[in-house]
């Protein structure tokens, strides 16, 4: 029987057990509902800063705003010792209106004219994706008669290892690493107009080795840039620090084994219409790779950063990356997303109905759709917490149910795998999805067929219990 028991922070556990506030919020604001716990980011930030300290590194944490559209998280962050990474004009406006000043903002991702010009007006850092974008920035800056030197970080991709061929996926982002001289030649033409801070990359991988190679390449770039007369001092390694969602490693391992055995046909199917997540049964042999996020992971967040900084580079006298950055006086910028909002949000839905499928499976109809919970086509392997309000029916714990969404669409299942619960809820009960603030709750949400987009509320824990605010009105200063 597959089980994916989520880690739930004490605050969230208390809030759910409190029931009354949650029920009245869903009754009053509708299903689905996103509940944000902005104060949770404090600990996540603290953990990253302590790793910087351990390695004697001057570092800055940039919250990757794209992780979540919430106002309250940005507002809370603006009062903490962090900066923000914005990827669109509206994210930049959100950062500014929530209290971030230009010197704490960095723009990443694809940029249009509106985004660039507003950024120039606030003298934010531009993490430049390509040289065409650099030209646009310079040209807009001179049209605007900008008197500030434009702060530039260059983003690279396509790094090569000297010792071994490590394949990386092709990236749509960044300047090819081979073009370092072309890029620096270009920058040299505008030396008086820019302040060149340093280099960046963001690799779409959770693999340490690829990141180590990129860092190794970038450290060499610092030396090349000095030959061009620049004094770069920033290395921006992007995000991808991961989060651990699952309490128990064995439970995760056993459940994934069951999933594979079911796909191989050794056990009864546990996926809707035998969905197989990238693997298939080829004459009894399992082929392909199970392309799911590792919801259990023992090396995440600040621990992952620590491991990265503790990696020794053979091409630099076997010194650790942390030591190399520290002794070269290179400031480290990181852009955590998921890890920044770990345990900072839950998504709540009401149960609308219970029914049987054409082959006898129990289906639980919710007031939420798949896109309100998942990014892209990823499968969420996290069991929801059910608050039984009304009468419930016992269920054989080996049977399992499917949770289906509120769209009039065959594929709108919340999970494409069975969830094994021991009590069937009834109409009006509440289903809570845990730890959804990082890319899950609103990255893909839409009001398709006029089903509502979830409203957001921010919760703060006070001495007198939980207090809630609309997401727009939350501020850590409210409590004063």
């Amino acid at each position, binding site marked *: 029987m597959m089980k994916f028991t989520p880690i739930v922070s004490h605050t969230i556990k208390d809030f759910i057990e409190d029931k009354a506030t949650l029920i009245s919020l869903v009754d009053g604001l509708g299903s689905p509902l996103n509940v944000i716990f902005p104060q949770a980011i404090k600990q996540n930030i603290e953990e990253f800063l302590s790793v910087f300290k351990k390695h004697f590194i001057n570092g800055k944490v940039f919250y990757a705003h794209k992780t979540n559209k919430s106002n309250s998280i940005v507002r809370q962050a603006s009062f903490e010792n962090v900066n923000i990474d914005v990827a669109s004009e509206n994210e930049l406006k959100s950062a500014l209106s929530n209290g971030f000043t230009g010197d704490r903002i960095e723009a990443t991702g694809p940029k249009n004219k509106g985004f660039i010009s507003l950024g120039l007006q606030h003298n934010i850092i531009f993490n430049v994706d390509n040289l065409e974008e650099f030209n646009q920035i310079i040209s807009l800056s001179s049209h605007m008669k900008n008197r500030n030197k434009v702060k530039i970080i260059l983003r690279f991709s396509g790094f090569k290892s000297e010792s071994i*061929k490590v*394949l990386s996926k092709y990236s749509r982002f960044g300047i090819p690493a081979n073009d370092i001289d072309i890029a620096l030649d270009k920058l040299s033409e505008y030396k008086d107009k820019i302040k060149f801070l340093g280099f960046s990359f963001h690799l779409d991988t959770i693999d340490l080795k690829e990141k180590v190679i990129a860092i190794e390449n970038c450290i060499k770039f610092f030396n090349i840039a000095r030959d061009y007369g620049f004094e770069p001092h920033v290395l921006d390694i992007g995000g991808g620090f991961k989060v651990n969602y699952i309490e128990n490693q064995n439970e995760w391992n056993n459940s994934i084994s069951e999933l594979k055995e079911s796909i191989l046909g050794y056990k009864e199917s546990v996926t809707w219409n035998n969905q197989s997540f990238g693997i298939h049964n080829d004459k009894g042999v399992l*082929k392909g790779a199970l392309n799911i996020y590792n919801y259990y992971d023992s090396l995440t967040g600040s621990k992952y950063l620590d491991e990265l900084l503790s990696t020794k580079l053979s091409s630099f006298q076997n010194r650790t990356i942390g030591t*190399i950055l520290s002794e070269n006086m290179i400031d480290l910028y990181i852009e955590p997303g998921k890890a920044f909002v770990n345990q900072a949000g839950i998504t709540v839905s009401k149960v609308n109905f219970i029914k049987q499928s054409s082959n006898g499976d129990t289906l639980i109809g919710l007031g939420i759709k798949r896109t309100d919970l998942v990014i892209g086509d990823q499968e969420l392997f996290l069991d929801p917490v059910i608050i039984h309000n009304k009468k419930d029916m016992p269920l054989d714990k080996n049977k399992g149910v499917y949770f289906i969404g509120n769209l009039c669409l065959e594929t709108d299942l919340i999970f494409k795998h069975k969830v094994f619960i021991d009590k069937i809820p009834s109409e009006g009960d509440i289903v809570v999805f845990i730890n959804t603030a990082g*890319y899950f709750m609103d990255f893909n949400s839409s009001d398709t067929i006029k089903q509502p987009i979830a409203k957001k509320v921010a919760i703060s824990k006070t001495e007198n219990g939980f207090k809630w605010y609309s997401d727009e009105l939350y501020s850590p200063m409210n409590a004063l």
Partner: protein
Amino acid sequence: MLYNNISELIGNTPLLKISPEVHKLENIEIYAKLELFNPFGSVKDRIGWGMIKDDINSIKDNRQTIIESSSGNTAKALQVLASSNGIKFKTVTNRIKVPEVKSILQILGAEIEELPGLSECPDPTDPNDPITYIENMMSVESEKYYHTAQYTNMKNPQIHYDNTGKEIYEDLGNIDYFFGTLGTTGSSRGTMEYLLEKNSDMKKVGIIASKGDSIPGIRNIDEMYEVGIFKKKLYDSIITVDSVEAVEWMLQLIRKCGVLGGPTSGAVFYGSLKYLRDIDKTLTEKKKAVFVACDRVEWYISYIQKRRPDIFDSSIKKDNIRNLSMDDLDKVIKIEIDEAEEWVEKNKPLIIDLRGNLAFKAKHIPNSINIIDNYFEELLDSGIPFSNNQTVLLVCPVGENSKKFAALLNKKGFKAFSLEGGIVSWRDAGYALERTILNETI
């Protein structure tokens, strides 16, 4: 003994009786098939040769490259056999977990391609596994490659049926218990089948790694499903071993039996005992058990270091930077950054910058010299290249390391000082810094 070709040394490995004082069983004799005695150090030498020997001339004539998905012993064997026959070899892998294994492969001259790691946002349609990657490469240029396909190649179990199984039988006769580690499963399956024909009552036990842990060359139960030649029903029992147990019993084998086997050998030895201990008590007659010691310990140093750091803790030397007392550290005179430039001007110290070469080259205090901290530590043990009437100022990134070295030097009777706040404070104070500019000659 005279040989004409290295491939002749493959196989016919020794069978060693493990002393009962080590395994403590009363009724069962345990024997280790020492596959680490193969010329390239592992059981995989047999299949490396076995999978290519029939076709070696045509591979050579057609100038094909041998390709395999291996992150260890098979790659080692294939690489040596290929290169000594003038053939190219390439291994595609999903990550080599132990750095020494990679180093050995590089020494042997292997071309290694490592596939990308899992994406932070996995794409369900991405076929990110080495076998698919190899198949795609081969469908583009099928003429160019010879894919040995160890996971599905039926020559793999056949070789062990023909040789390993037979060798054991010739040395020992009927076997009652056979233990093999499950990787490709070829070696245990082939060997077992031969022995089973001789004694159909033989118990067959497969050893696998516990999930979430790794033992080189052994798969966990999930990974077994990805292996074409694995048949769960072939085994009477499957025993799970974790890496700490594997390393512990590897040490027993090395230290008590003189078998320099790697973690896999330890895993199968421990797995055998786990299975046999209870059975042993119920027996009234003598029985024989055999396990396969797959490869050698030398290329797993960092793997062992990670799991058993205690082995490597050398006895603490009298004085070093890790055993200084708070008192030693407190006694160090730190040169405050406000007065630092003036202090340097006045005392003309020997300024030693403890940072790495690249950092020193980029920026350093004028007239300082660069001795990297770990070299400096060695120098302090062997002989210090300046006299003790020389005033020394130590510089590091933030003043942490320099304080420790100053304390140690002072204990030895030197006049050493530490720059408070390190090079970062020196830079922030706006004092002079230099860059090394070399004439780049050929």
